[in-house]
C-alpha cells in the first residue's frame, strides 16, 4: 500500500527536481556537502555494501545510501524492503513495481533479469532500518500524504538521526495536518533524546494531546523520567486511557449498529411473513441464501463476459435477487403454506423441511464450499473518523438497511397493495367481500417478504461467507428480533434489531463473543416471558388472531 502510493507519487516527478529536493534536504541536514561526483561515489560505496552477507554491513549501506542523496535512493530502498533488490555479479540491480529491471547505480533500465541475480537479504531489522531511512527521505516529498506518513514513521521509530531533518521540515511545512504530525514526531524525538526537563515536559504535553495507542506506547517507554516528568506522564496516561475507553465504547456502538443493521435486513422480510401474515417461515434464512447465490451468479457472469460492469454488479444483483427469492416465495406459498393457514405449528415443520431441501439443493448445485463474492471498489477499504476506523462495506450496509426499511414502510402505508395487505390481515372475510382477491394478496405478501430476504442476501454476501449454511446462522436471531420487537410492527423490528446488535457488541469486550451471545439469548428468553408480545405489542382485536 505504502510502496505503491510512493511510486505513483514519484513517477511523474522529473528526476532533476527530485535530485534537487534531495540535495536541499541533505544540505539543510548538514550531513554532507553535496557535490555530484562525491555523491555518486558515496552511493557506489553504499551500494557495494549490499552485496555483503552481514546484516551490519547492509544496515550501514542503507544509512549511507540515504545520506548519499542518490536520486533513486527511495526506489532502491523500497526495493530492498520488498526483496526486489538483487546482486548480480558486481552490479546491484532492482526490479521496480512495474517489473522492469534497473541498474541501481545509474538507474538505467536493463532488458530482463540479469543472469545470476540474487535477492539482497532482509530480516526485520533491515526492514526497520529501511523504513526509518525512507521516513527521513520522504519528509521532504512534494506530496502532503507522503510527508504525513513519513512524520508518523519517524514518530514510531524515534530515530535520533532524523532530528535535524524533522526540525528543518517543520520550518518549511505549510500543511496543518502534516505540521502537527511533525511536531509530534519532534516531541517524541525530544523525549527520547538528551534535551532538558522543560523541553521534555512540553513534549509530553504534545504527545498527550494525540490521545491514541501510539502516544500511550511512546509515553510508557520514556527512558529515565525525572519525578516531574513521571507525574506528567502518568496523568497524560490516565487522560489518554480514558479517551481511548470512550472511543472504544463508540467503536462498539458502531459495530453494534452495523450488526443491528445486518439483523434488521435479515429480519425485515420475516417481519412481513411472520409479523403481518402470522406465517412461521423457517425457510426464511434460505431465501437470504438464495439472494446471496444470485449475487454470486451475477458476478460470475460479469467476470466472464463484461468485467467493466463489476462495480455495478450489486446494483444488477439487487432486483434479480428480489425477483428470484420472491418467485421462490410465491411458489412456496402456493405449493405448501396456503394449505396450512391457521396451523402455525405444522407450517413451522413443513417450512423447516423445505429449508433442508433448499440447502441440499444449493449444496448439490454449487458445492458445499464457500463461494467467493467480491466487493466492488466502492465497498472496499476504510476511512478514519476521529478515533474510529470505519469500513465502507459496513457503512453501506447500514445505509442500505435503513433504505430498505423506509421503502417497505412506504409500500405498506402508501400503496394500494399495502392497503390491501393490511386489510386482508386485519379481516380476511371483510376484505374478500370488498372485492380484494385475498389469495393473491397472500401470495404476493409472502413473495414480498421472501424478496426482501433475497435483497438482504445481496448485502450479506458482502460481509459473510456465501455457503449453503448462510441462512441458518441468521434464522434464530431473526426470529428473536421480530418477537422481541413485537409482531406486526416494523418499528419494533428496527428497535429490536438495533438493541440486540448493540447489546451484543457492548457485551463482547466484557464477556467474550460466545458468552455475550449466550447472555443476550438468555436475557431475550427472560424478556419474552415478561412481555410475551414483545416491545411494541399489537393492541385491539388483531391480538387474538
Amino acid at each position: 500500500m505504502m510502496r505503491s502510493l510512493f511510486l505513483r507519487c514519484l513517477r511523474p516527478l522529473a528526476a532533476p527536481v527530485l535530485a534537487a529536493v534531495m540535495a536541499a534536504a541533505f544540505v539543510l541536514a548538514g550531513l554532507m556537502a553535496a557535490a555530484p561526483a562525491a555523491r555518486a561515489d558515496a552511493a557506489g560505496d553504499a551500494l557495494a555494501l549490499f552485496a555483503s552477507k552481514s546484516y551490519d554491513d547492509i544496515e550501514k549501506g542503507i544509512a549511507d545510501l540515504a545520506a548519499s542523496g542518490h536520486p533513486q535512493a527511495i526506489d532502491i530502498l523500497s526495493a530492498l524492503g520488498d526483496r526486489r533488490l538483487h546482486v548480480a555479479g558486481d552490479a546491484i540491480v532492482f526490479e521496480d513495481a512495474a517489473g522492469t529491471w534497473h541498474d541501481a547505480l545509474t538507474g538505467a533500465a536493463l532488458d530482463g533479469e540479469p543472469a545470476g541475480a540474487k535477492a539482497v537479504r532482509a530480516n526485520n531489522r533491515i526492514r526497520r532500518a529501511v523504513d526509518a531511512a525512507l521516513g527521513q527521505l520522504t519528509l521532504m516529498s512534494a506530496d502532503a500524504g507522503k510527508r504525513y506518513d513519513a512524520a508518523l514513521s519517524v514518530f514510531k521509530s524515534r530515530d535520533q538521526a532524523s532530528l535535524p531533518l524533522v526540525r528543518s521540515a517543520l520550518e518549511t511545512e505549510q500543511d496543518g495536518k502534516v505540521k502537527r504530525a511533525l511536531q509530534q514526531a519532534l516531541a517524541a524525538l525530544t523525549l527520547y533524546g538528551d534535551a532538558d526537563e522543560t523541553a521534555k515536559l512540553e513534549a509530553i504535553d504534545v504527545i498527550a494531546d494525540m490521545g491514541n495507542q501510539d502516544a500511550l506506547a511512546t509515553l510508557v517507554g520514556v527512558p529515565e523520567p525525572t519525578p516531574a516528568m513521571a507525574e506528567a506522564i502518568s496523568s497524560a496516561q490516565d487522560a489518554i486511557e480514558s479517551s481511548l475507553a470512550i472511543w472504544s465504547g463508540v467503536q462498539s456502538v458502531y459495530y453494534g449498529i452495523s450488526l443491528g443493521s445486518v439483523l434488521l435486513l435479515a429480519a425485515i422480510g420475516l417481519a412481513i411473513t411472520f409479523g403481518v401474515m402470522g406465517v412461521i417461515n423457517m425457510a426464511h434464512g434460505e431465501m437470504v441464501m438464495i439472494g446471496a447465490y444470485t449475487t454470486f451468479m451475477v458476478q460470475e457472469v460479469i467476470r466472464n463476459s463484461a468485467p467493466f460492469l463489476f462495480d455495478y454488479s450489486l446494483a444488477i444483483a439487487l432486483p434479480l435477487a428480489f425477483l428470484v427469492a420472491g418467485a421462490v416465495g410465491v411458489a412456496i406459498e402456493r405449493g405448501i403454506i396456503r394449505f396450512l393457514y391457521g396451523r402455525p405449528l405444522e407450517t413451522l415443520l413443513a417450512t423447516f423441511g423445505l429449508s433442508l431441501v433448499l440447502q441440499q439443493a444449493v449444496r448439490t448445485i454449487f458445492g458445499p464450499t464457500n463461494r467467493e463474492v467480491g466487493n466492488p471498489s466502492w465497498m472496499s477499504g476504510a476511512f478514519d473518523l476521529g478515533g474510529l476506523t470505519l469500513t465502507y462495506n459496513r457503512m453501506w450496509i447500514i445505509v442500505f438497511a435503513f433504505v430498505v426499511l423506509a421503502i417497505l414502510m412506504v409500500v405498506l402505508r402508501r400503496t394500494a397493495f399495502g392497503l390491501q395487505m393490511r386489510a386482508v390481515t386485519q379481516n380476511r372475510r371483510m376484505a374478500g367481500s370488498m372485492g380484494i382477491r385475498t389469495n393473491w394478496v397472500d401470495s404476493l405478501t409472502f413473495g414480498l417478504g421472501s424478496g426482501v430476504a433475497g435483497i438482504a442476501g445481496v448485502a450479506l454476501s458482502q460481509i459473510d461467507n456465501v455457503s449453503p449454511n448462510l441462512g441458518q446462522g441468521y434464522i434464530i436471531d431473526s426470529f428473536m428480533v421480530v418477537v422481541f420487537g413485537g409482531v406486526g410492527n416494523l418499528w419494533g423490528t428496527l428497535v429490536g434489531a438495533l438493541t440486540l446488535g448493540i447489546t451484543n457488541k457492548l457485551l463482547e469486550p466484557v464477556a467474550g463473543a460466545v458468552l455475550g451471545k449466550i447472555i443476550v439469548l438468555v436475557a431475550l428468553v427472560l424478556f419474552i416471558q415478561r412481555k410475551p408480545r414483545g416491545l411494541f405489542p399489537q393492541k385491539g382485536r388483531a391480538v387474538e388472531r
Partner: protein
Amino acid sequence: MITKRIFGNDRLTLWFLGILFGVLALVAVLNLATTPDSAFHVPTYAVALMGKYLCYAILALSIDLVWGYVGILSLGHGAFFALGGYAMGMYLMRQIGPRGVYGDPILPDFMVFLNWKELPWYWLGFDNFFFAMFMVALVPALLAFVFGYLAFRSRVTGVYLSIITQAMTYALLLAFFRNDMGFGGNNGLTDFKDLLGFNLQTDGMRVTLFVSSGILLAACYLLCRWITLSRFGKVLIAIRDAESRTRFMGYRVEGYKVAAFTLSGIMAGLAGALYVPQVGIINPGEFAPQNSIEAVVWVAVGGRGTLVGAAIGAIVVNLGKTLFTGWLPDLWLFALGGLFVFVTLLMPKGILGTVPQLLEMARNRRAQNAVAEKAPDAPPSADAPKGAGE
C-alpha cells in the same frame, strides 16, 4: 366412543409391547447364542444401532407427551436429551480413572490438556453411579421446571414458545462449545471404558444396554399411557384443545403444563443417558436445534398424540436415515425435508392415523362392491363405519 378408543388402544399396547419384547429377546439371543459366521447372527454393531433407535424412541415419546397431549411444541427437547447424556458421560469419564492418555487418576484427559489442577465443583460426586443417575434425571428436570415455570406462568404459547425453546437449546449449544465450561468443549466427552465396572465394548454389555433401552421404552410408554388416560391426562387434553376454557373452568393450567413438561424433560434425559454409552460419545452437537426439530418430525411421522406412533416414527425415520446415508448420502436431506412437507400436508395424522384409515377405506370399498354386486340399484349404505382415527 371413549371405551372403544381405550379398547382399541389396549390392543395396540399389547401388540406394541409384545413386538418390542419379542424383538429384544430375539436380538439378544441371536447376538449372544450364535457364532459370527452363522446366518442368524446379529452383529454387535447392529445391536448398538438398534439400541440407539430405542433411545430415540423414548425421546420421541417424551415429545409426544407434551406435543400430542398438551399442545406444547418444544423445539428444544434435544437439550434435555443432551443434558442427560452429559450427566451419564461425566460418570463414564470418571470411570476411566488412570487409564486416560495422560494417566491422571482423577482428571479427565481434556482437563489435563487444559492444564486444570483439580476437578470443578460440579464434577464432584459423578464417580458414584447412583448420584450420576440421580443427576441424569435432576438436571433436565430442573431446566424443564424453571423454563416451563417461567414460560407457562407468563402464558407464552404456540409458536412463541417453540421459538424460545429453540433459543434455549441454541444457547446451550454455544455454552457447551466453550472449553472453559468444563465439559470438553468441541470434542465433548468420549473414550469411555467401563460402566459399573463392566467393559463397554463387550457383546454382553452391548446387549444389556440394548435390552435396558427397550425396557425403559416400555416403562416410559406405560407411564405416559397411564398419565394420558388418567384424570390428569384428561385435563392435559383439555388444555391442548381449549386452554382458555380450561382455565375458566378453574384448573390451574400452568401447574399441569409445568408438570407434564418436567416429566417429559426427565424422560428425554433418561433417553440421553442410555444413548451415550451405546454411541460412545456426547458432544455439543446434540444440542443443535436441528436435532430437536428432527425429533419432532419423528413424532409427526408416527402420529401425534398416539404414543405408540411416536416410537414407531422415531424407529422408522432413523432406520431410513441409516439406510439412506449409506446408499445415497446426498439425497438424505432431500428425503428428510420432503418427509417434513409430505407428512404435514398429506399425512397430518401420521402412520398410525393414516394406515388404519386407508385399511378402513379399502374394506368399505370392498363391502360396497359386494353390496353393489348383490343389488345393483341399492343406494350405498349410509351408516358406514367411521375411520379409526376419528
